[in-house]
C-alpha cells in the first residue's frame, strides 16, 4: 500500500489503549487485517499509526466460564472457532457462522473480534482510490452527498455484513470493552447502531461471553451470497429454536437477520407467532410471510441486490433455517 504509517507492537492491553489515546483518531487496531488491510490498500482509511494487537498475549482463547457458558478471546481466529469441539457441540450456530466467512485463508488469520467490529460497507465508499478520485466526496469523506441514497441528509452508513454478529446476538452473547476508564460489558445486540458500533476511540473489544443455552435449543446460521465462498452475505439468518420434540411444539425461538439492513435485527413478530405453536409446513409458511413483511420495512439495496431481492431471500432462508432446526432437534 502507498501510505506509510508508524507501527507498534504493544505487549499489554494497557499499552495498546494508551497508544489509541495518544494518537486519538489517527491510530487503528490491527488484528487479522483481513478487513483493515484492503481498506488501507484502497486508501479508504489511511491511519498514521498501526497498533498490532496480535503481539499482545492473553487475547486468544476459548475457555469455559465456570459452568455459566463460554469466554472467547478477541483474537481467536475464525478457523479456531469453526473447528473448536466445545463450540461445535454447545454453540453450533457460532461455528456455522464462522465457517461461512470468506474462505479458509481468510478464516486462518481473521479474528472473531475483527468480524464483529468490521467496518460497515457501502457500495460507493468501499471503492479504490482511483474510483473515488473522480467522484465528489460523500458525507463519510467530509462531503455533502450520499450516493447510496441521493436524498439523504447524512451518511447512511449502509450495511454491517458480519456473519458472526447475528449468530452471537441469537446466542445472547455479551462483549467486554476495555478502555482508559476501565472495562464494561454490554449485550452484543446493543453493540451495533446505525451510525456504527459502540466502541469508543480508546476501547478494545477483548472478549466475547456466551451464556450456556437451554438444554433443547438448536441453532442454525444460514446465509445467501452469489458464490458459496469469497462473498460477503447478501442476507444471513440466525435461528435458535427450543423444541418440545414430543409434541412438536416450539417452546421458544430467536430469529435474527443480518446483512439485510444496516444492522442485525430481531423479528419479534415472527418469534411471537411461532412461540407455543405446533410446527408444521403451514405454520412455517405463515412465519415466512411475517418475516418477509418485517424484512421488507427494513431491507436496503446494496449494489446489485435490491431490497425486494433481499426480502425474498429472507423468506427462503427462514423456512430453511426452521426446517434445519427441526432436523437437529430430532
Amino acid at each position, binding site marked *: 500500500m502507498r501510505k506509510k504509517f508508524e507501527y507498534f507492537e504493544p505487549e499489554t492491553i494497557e499499552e495498546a489503549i494508551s497508544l489509541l489515546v495518544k494518537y486519538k483518531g489517527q491510530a487503528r487496531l490491527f488484528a487479522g487485517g483481513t478487513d483493515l488491510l484492503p481498506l488501507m490498500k484502497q486508501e479508504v482509511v489511511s491511519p498514521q499509526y498501526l497498533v498490532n494487537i496480535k503481539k499482545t498475549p492473553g487475547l486468544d482463547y476459548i475457555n469455559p466460564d465456570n459452568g455459566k457458558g463460554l469466554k472467547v478471546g478477541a483474537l481467536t481466529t475464525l478457523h479456531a472457532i469453526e473447528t473448536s469441539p466445545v463450540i461445535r457441540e454447545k454453540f453450533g450456530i457460532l461455528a456455522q457462522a464462522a465457517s461461512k466467512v470468506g474462505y479458509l485463508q481468510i478464516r486462518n488469520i481473521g479474528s472473531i473480534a475483527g468480524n464483529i467490529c468490521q467496518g460497515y460497507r457501502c457500495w460507493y465508499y468501499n471503492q479504490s482510490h*482511483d474510483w473515488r478520485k473522480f467522484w465528489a466526496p460523500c458525507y463519510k469523506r467530509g462531503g455533502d452527498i450520499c450516493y447510496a441514497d441521493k436524498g439523504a441528509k447524512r451518511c447512511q452508513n449502509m450495511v454491517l455484513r458480519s456473519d458472526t454478529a447475528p449468530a452471537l446476538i441469537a446466542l445472547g452473547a455479551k462483549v467486554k470493552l476495555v478502555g482508559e476508564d476501565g472495562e464494561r460489558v454490554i449485550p452484543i445486540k446493543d453493540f451495533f447502531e446505525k451510525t456504527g458500533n459502540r466502541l469508543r476511540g480508546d476501547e478494545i473489544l477483548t472478549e466475547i461471553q456466551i451464556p450456556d443455552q437451554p438444554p433443547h435449543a438448536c441453532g442454525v446460521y444460514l446465509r445467501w451470497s452469489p458464490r458459496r465462498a469469497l462473498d460477503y452475505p447478501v442476507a444471513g439468518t440466525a435461528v435458535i429454536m427450543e423444541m418440545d420434540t414430543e409434541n412438536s411444539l416450539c417452546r421458544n425461538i430467536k430469529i435474527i437477520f443480518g446483512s439485510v439492513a444496516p444492522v442485525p435485527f430481531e423479528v419479534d413478530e415472527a418469534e411471537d407467532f411461532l412461540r407455543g405453536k405446533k410446527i408444521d409446513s403451514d405454520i412455517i409458511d405463515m412465519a415466512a410471510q411475517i418475516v418477509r413483511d418485517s424484512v421488507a420495512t427494513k431491507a436496503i439495496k446494496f449494489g446489485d441486490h435490491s431490497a425486494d431481492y433481499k426480502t425474498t431471500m429472507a423468506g427462503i432462508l427462514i423456512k430453511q433455517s426452521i426446517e434445519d432446526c427441526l432436523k437437529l432437534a430430532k
Partner: protein
Amino acid sequence: MSDAFSVVGKRVPQKDGVDLVTGVGKFIDDIVLPKMLYGKILRSAHAHARILNIDTSKAEKLPGVKAVITAKDTPRLRYGVAQIYDEIRDEPVLTDDKVRFYGDRVAAVAAVDVDTVEEALDLIEVDYEVLPAVFDPEEAMKPGAPKVHERFYKGDGVHGFKECEVENNICITKRVLAGDVEKGFKESDVILEGRYTAHGQEHSHLETHGAVAAVDLMGNIKLWTTTQTPFTIRRDLVKMLGIPLGKIDVIGTKCGGAFGGKNEVTVEPHAILLAQKTGRPVKMIYSREEEFIASTIRHPFIFYSKIGVRKDGKLMAKQGKAILNTGAYSNHGVGVAYLTGAIFATLYRVENVNYEGFVVYTNCTYGGAFRGYGNPQMTFAIETEMDRVAETLNMNPVELRLINAPVAGEKSACGILVGSCGLKDCIAQAAKTVGWENKWKGWETR
C-alpha cells in the same frame, strides 16, 4: 490408435507443466531487469471530454519520477488492432484531442517504484471541457447524439488509408444480402419478430495485462508482453510508433489466461516510449481495476430479428439488424459484426437473408475479441428464435432444427462453403443422450 505415431493419438506431457506447477514459469510481472522502472497510465476522469491542457510539471519534479509523457511525445497516429476485411484506425496511443471513455489514456509516468508512480499520477493536472456523453448505442445512432468520433481512417496497407467522416456514431455497417427476403416472407406461413439483448462481459483472466520494454543504445527494442498474439502486437507497434519491423523483438511470456482479452495492445507502446525516453527498462502492469475499466470486453449486443417460416418447418426468410456497442474505439468491432452476420446467414439454413450489423460508437469501455467473437450473442438469439418458431408451429424443436441444419457441401447465404458439418449428428446425439423422445410431450404441457 496406430503405434506408427509418436505424438498423434498419444497423451503427451504438458511441455511447460513442471515449470508451472513449481512456480518457475515466468509471467510478465515476474520479469525483472536491472535498473527497471515502473510505469502507469493516467486515465480519463470523464466519459467524454475535450482536453484543454495537461500540466505535468509537478509530477516531473517528484523525486523518483524519471519520465512523464503525453500525446506530444507520441507519433500522434491513429491505429487499429484488427485487420479483418477493413482496417479502421481510430485509436491513439495517448489522446491528443478528447477522451472518449472513462479510463481513456491521457498520460503515462515512469518512476523508480509503483508507489512513486501512483503519487505522480495524482500530481498531473488536466483541464477538461466536459462534453455530453452517450452510453446507449441506439441513442448514439439518433441524429443529434453526442459524436464520439468525428472521423477515422479506413483502408489497408496496400491501398492506403482514407479519412472517413463518422455519421450517427456508426463506425461501420456489415451487410449480408442473399436471395429476396420480401418474397421469402410472402411465402411464409408464420412470421416472428423479436428483440434480443446480450450484455458485455469482462475476460477477467487471473493474470492482468502487462509489458516490459527495454531499449538498447542502438535503439533496438525488446518487449516482453503477456499476449495471445506476439506477432500482431509487433505488427501493431510498427504501425503505431513508426518503428522499423527489424528493430523490435516481441517475446510472449507465459500467459496467465486470455480468452481473447490479450489479442490487443494495452501498455506496450507506452512502455516502449518511456523506455526510449529514460534509457531504462520499464515495466507496466494493469491493476485488476484497470482490467474492468480499460481493457476490451465482449460487445454488448442488441438484435432485432424477423424470421419467416413455412408450416412444414422450412425457414423461408431471415431479416436481422444487429447493433454492436463497440464503445469508444472500434478494436475488433468489424470482425465481430462480420461474424454475427455470417452466423445469422448460416445457422440455420435459409436462402433469403437481409442482415445489417452496425458497429456503433458510444462512450463506454470498448469491445474487442472475447472467445466466441459474436457467436455467443448471435447463437443465443437464433436458438431462442428457433424455439419460438417451433412453439408457434407446434413442432418438436429438435425436428425443426434437423430440418434446417446446414450440411457439408452446402454454400450458406453469405457465401461460406460448409466444408464439414456435424450439426445434425450432434443434435440427434444430444437428443438421444437426454432421452428427448421420452421427455418431449408437446408444447401444451410446458
